[in-house]
């Protein structure tokens, strides 16, 4: 099985390269048989890569430590699901996994378009196979072959890094990779449109779901990563502006900008070059994020490998792709002319344009800050870094600007909004926003930016709720339906619009959660069993934690695990116990800290076992080694990030859900007829 997988990897490379040539040739000469040969290679490669991935997984499951990759990322006692996730634990496997997902999406794109959109398909297949071929080339010829063998078979592997032995490991990287790879499909359609000259909105209409799908996975992947970092000590909380976190944020920022700017093109025929630029940039950033995660070029908590050679190969690939796309866009410039002009700055297209400027500015600032150490080192020979304060300082105002636009965009009219439209739509939300900010101020919140965020969030929420209520009432009146039915039909009829609003609600929740962290509290204390510590939450609750002592045991893949037990009471009433651990893994020298989290709707109690006076004694259940130091935190509103993530997922699913019957394309809509509340 393992050899078969290796063989499949070798066969896949020539097939992908030949298939790409067939598809491009067939497209250029209008020869259907050649195109079909290209399409068949897409299916063949997916099958071959399934074999390859199965080979790697089997090697992990059967403890084949004579393979370098398995020896480095597994050991005998490792839990089975971590052995399976070994496929993406290291650089080599994750490259295979990346190209497997790409190939899966290629199959879906090719199969679903086997009878339609034929004018695009030859080049789409060509581009997809070229990208696949590039990754296969890297896998086989850049010293990253996952099937590399050791000259001997070690008795046991080195084990998986304990920080990766977390259930998020099985879900966060795949989600992010799904988002990265799904974006290759819109990119392929864009390049195809440039090549065949069909530069109207057709390629956007075809790939709209793909863009949403990619965005959906990226957003979820980022939120899963935040959750993981929140649970893992030493990763600086849910977001630390670490280079690798930034790298995954960059394509999300540009993809979000793209998701909005294509609506201007669909409705008003503008920004065609811009959209091409965005789709290419986002694709390049997904590649950038993929290799940055595993390259080690920039110091980061995530850098799990130090193979820099591969980084240069990837940068070269990015350069070639960028150059080719720029040439194509310049060549097709005459066909990318704008059909309309912006008439007023009080219009939806202008709101979307500012949204794009802010997203791109944020992307630029994040990129600049991430690469700043390398830039200064190159220019002055002196490395200068910028930390989280830099990123917060810049992204806070940009984020607030985007939050405001999120309220304005949906209710302002296309082309030119009338004053009456503005007054009617914004008077109440502005009042509500101000009242909420004032309410928080009177309640004792004294953090300026947090107050602004709460106010703006209330403003946006009011606008969205009013839209939903108005829509439901109108439908209920016209169709004579009950309110619930009317609401469901309303959302069902125009999923893109209402699903989008639900996504906005989720984003507002996440923003509110970020602002909440301004009120976090923490303390460090050393306790003997029986002693207790009190911490007051910003909401005025008093938590009392009573230390019950340590107990130690052996666990699966663990040499020892010592658990500190705390009785927790809130305002004098006992509410349960919390535990925090130190673990000693079989394959790891340093002990690993596991935090305890007690989540409530508005605040989390977060417990860290900082140190034990005599850790070795504690591991051996020594009764005298019980004195321990704890850090206790009260984290405000953190839970809202995860709730927001769920709402984003719900909204995303509604938006993407396939509709029965002909999909109403907003391109067919005459923009002059759409006034105050048009279709998006």
């Amino acid at each position: 099985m393992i050899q078969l997988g290796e063989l499949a990897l070798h066969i896949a490379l020539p097939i992908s390269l030949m298939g790409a040539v067939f598809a491009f040739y067939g497209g250029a000469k209008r020869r259907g048989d050649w195109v079909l040969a290209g399409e068949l290679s897409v299916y063949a490669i997916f099958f071959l890569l399934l074999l390859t991935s199965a080979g790697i997984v089997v090697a992990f499951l059967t403890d084949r430590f004579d393979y370098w990759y398995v020896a480095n990322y597994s050991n005998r006692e490792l839990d089975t699901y971590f052995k399976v996730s070994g496929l993406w634990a290291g650089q080599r496997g994750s490259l295979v996994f990346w190209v497997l997902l790409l190939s899966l999406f290629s199959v879906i794109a090719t199969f679903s378009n086997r009878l339609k959109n034929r004018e695009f398909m030859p080049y789409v297949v060509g581009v997809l196979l070229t990208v696949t071929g590039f990754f296969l080339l890297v896998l086989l010829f850049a010293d990253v072959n996952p099937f590399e063998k050791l000259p001997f078979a070690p008795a046991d592997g080195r084990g998986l890094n304990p920080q990766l032995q977390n259930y998020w490991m099985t879900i966060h990287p795949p989600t992010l990779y799904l988002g990265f790879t799904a974006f290759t499909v819109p990119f392929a359609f864009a390049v195809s449109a440039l090549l065949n000259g069909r530069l109207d909105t057709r390629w956007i209409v075809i790939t709209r779901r793909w863009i949403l799908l990619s965005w959906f996975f990226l957003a979820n992947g980022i939120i899963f990563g935040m959750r993981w970092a929140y649970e893992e000590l030493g990763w600086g909380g849910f977001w630390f502006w670490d280079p690798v976190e930034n790298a995954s944020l960059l394509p999300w920022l540009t993809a979000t900008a793209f998701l909005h700017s294509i609506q201007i093109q669909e409705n008003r025929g503008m920004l065609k070059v811009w959209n091409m630029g965005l789709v290419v940039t986002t694709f390049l950033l997904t590649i950038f994020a993929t290799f940055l995660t595993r390259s080690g070029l920039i110091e980061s908590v995530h850098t799990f490998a130090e193979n820099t050679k591969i980084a240069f190969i990837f940068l070269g690939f990015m350069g070639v792709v960028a150059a080719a796309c720029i040439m194509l866009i310049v060549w097709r410039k005459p066909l990318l002319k704008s059909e309309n002009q912006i008439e007023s700055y009080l219009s939806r297209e202008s709101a979307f344009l500012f949204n794009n400027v802010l997203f791109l500015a944020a992307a630029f600032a994040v990129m600049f800050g991430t690469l700043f150490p390398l830039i200064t080192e190159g220019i002055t020979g002196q490395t200068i870094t910028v930390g989280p304060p830099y990123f917060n300082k810049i992204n806070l105002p940009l984020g607030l600007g985007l939050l405001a636009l999120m309220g304005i965009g949906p209710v302002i009219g296309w082309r030119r909004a009338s004053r009456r439209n503005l007054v009617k739509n914004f008077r109440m939300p502005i009042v509500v926003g101000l009242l909420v900010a004032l309410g928080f101020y009177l309640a004792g919140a004294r953090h300026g930016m947090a107050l602004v965020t709460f106010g703006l969030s209330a403003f946006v929420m009011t606008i969205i709720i009013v839209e939903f209520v108005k829509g439901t009432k109108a439908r209920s009146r016209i169709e004579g339906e009950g309110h619930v039915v009317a609401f469901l039909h309303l959302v069902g009829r125009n999923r893109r619009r209402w699903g989008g609003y639900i996504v906005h609600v989720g984003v507002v929740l996440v923003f509110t959660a970020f602002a909440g962290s301004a009120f976090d509290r923490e303390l460090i204390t050393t306790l003997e069993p029986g002693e207790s510590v009190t911490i007051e939450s910003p909401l005025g609750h008093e938590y009392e934690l009573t230390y019950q002592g340590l107990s130690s045991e052996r666990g699966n893949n663990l040499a020892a695990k010592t658990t500190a037990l705390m009785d927790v009471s809130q305002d004098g009433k006992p509410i349960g116990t919390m535990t925090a651990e130190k673990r000693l893994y079989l394959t790891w020298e340093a002990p690993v800290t596991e935090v305890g989290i007690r989540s409530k709707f508005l605040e989390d109690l977060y417990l860290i076992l900082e140190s034990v006076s005599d850790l070795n004694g504690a591991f051996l259940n020594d009764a005298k080694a019980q004195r321990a130091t704890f850090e206790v935190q009260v984290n405000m509103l953190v839970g809202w990030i995860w709730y927001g993530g769920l709402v984003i997922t719900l909204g995303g699913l509604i938006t993407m859900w396939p509709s029965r019957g002909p999909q109403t394309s907003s391109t067919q809509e005459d923009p002059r007829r759409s006034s105050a509340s048009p279709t998006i």
Partner: protein
Amino acid sequence: MEEYNFALWSSVLILHCSYMIAFAVHLLGSGPFTMKSNFRFLGAIGGVSLVVGYLIWTGVTETMTYYLTPIELINRVEEDPTFHQVGVKVSGRLEKGSWSRDSDELLHYFTVADLEDESVRFSVEYRDILPDTFNDQELQDVVLEGRFREDGVFDATVVLTKCGSRYEATPEELVEDYIE
């Protein structure tokens, strides 16, 4: 390797900048704006760009941190005593067996030496949670952030450990493990 890094990374950045410029040119030229169209727009977008530029500029100047070796740091403060007040980032080697702690005050003490010249060293005070991988029983590189006080003690606010090979071993290292 270092100079390659710089060349390649800066090309990424230049690429990114060129997109921004291309967009600006596109807007001014054949894009949605013509000369006679609304000037307020260009003013507003120009305003946003200026604000963002200003934010980046002040963000960098206010938060930038020098990344130095212990030798560079000590030379620097000798030349310019005001450097004691500046926040810096230092990468050095943790000295074996130098860690101790005051559990009443929750302070950690340890000594960090230069990577190349081990005689250049200073003691460090740190009042927070050390990373799990911090271990003074073996050779370890650490990165500190904080301020080098006038009394010659480094007041650290962040301590990170750096062990490049701990995630992946080369086949040679695996052979060594095996022989052991």
